[in-house]
């Protein structure tokens, strides 16, 4: 699907891209928060949180990759 025939006007596509960008940024901040929190807990001797946090970060990354794919579909090179 090319940008010209995806049924979106440039304005609509811009709004979609802004939305995706916002979500990706939000998830990235969540991942950073997870990492700093896990590091803090690990250095404080709390070892139980490390793997659940790693899995949560992986889920966030999967979400981000999905959003990135949508972005690629909206605007292929």
């Amino acid at each position: 699907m090319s940008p010209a025939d995806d049924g979106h006007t440039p304005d609509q596509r811009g709004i979609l891209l802004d939305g995706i960008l916002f979500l990706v940024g939000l998830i990235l901040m969540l991942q950073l928060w997870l990492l700093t929190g896990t590091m803090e807990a690990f250095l404080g001797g709390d070892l139980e949180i490390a793997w659940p946090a790693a899995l949560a970060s992986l889920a966030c990354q999967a979400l981000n990759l999905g959003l990135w794919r949508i972005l690629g579909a909206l605007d292929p090179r």
Partner: protein
Amino acid sequence: MQDHPAEFPPDNASQAPAVLPRIRFPDGRSEADQPGWRHAFPIDWARDQVVSRRDFTRLMVLTGLAFTVAQFGVGLASLRAGRARPEPKALARVEEIPVGETMRLHYPGPRDPILLTHLSTGAFVAYGQLCTHLQCPVVPRAELGRLECPCHNGWFDLAEGRPMAGPPRRPLTRIQLEIRDGVIHATGVEERTA
């Protein structure tokens, strides 16, 4: 200089809509009103911004991937840390440390400095010497009842090892002690959160 279409008339003005479809010009004027040079160097500003945002999003996704890899690194480190159990070790005899004095030793490894202090209450306490802020060695100030980190002026309570002032947020690593037959033994290491 004022842009005016009359100065540089487009060579193919009649074919312009077919050549430059869906371009919105920054000055908001129609394509027919654009100067000629814009037809020679057409830039779709909306599309240009899309490319910038797409590349920025890719950068963020890759940064997130680095965070995820780091998370799994912490997970692996926690597995290793969970398995490691330091061996008990005799540190010093009770009479070697007068009340209010501090002895610098190493536990559990030779690169892990600790401070063993005889408190005025008669109890012995031992803490890892590395500040929980940026790993500078802390200095005992028994007369003030605290340990001080000279790097960033962090203070820790001598009796509990908890942060009192400055940038440190976590307590010092506490060494578990046991006194048997007049000898102080270290039996474990206790990392603590706030």
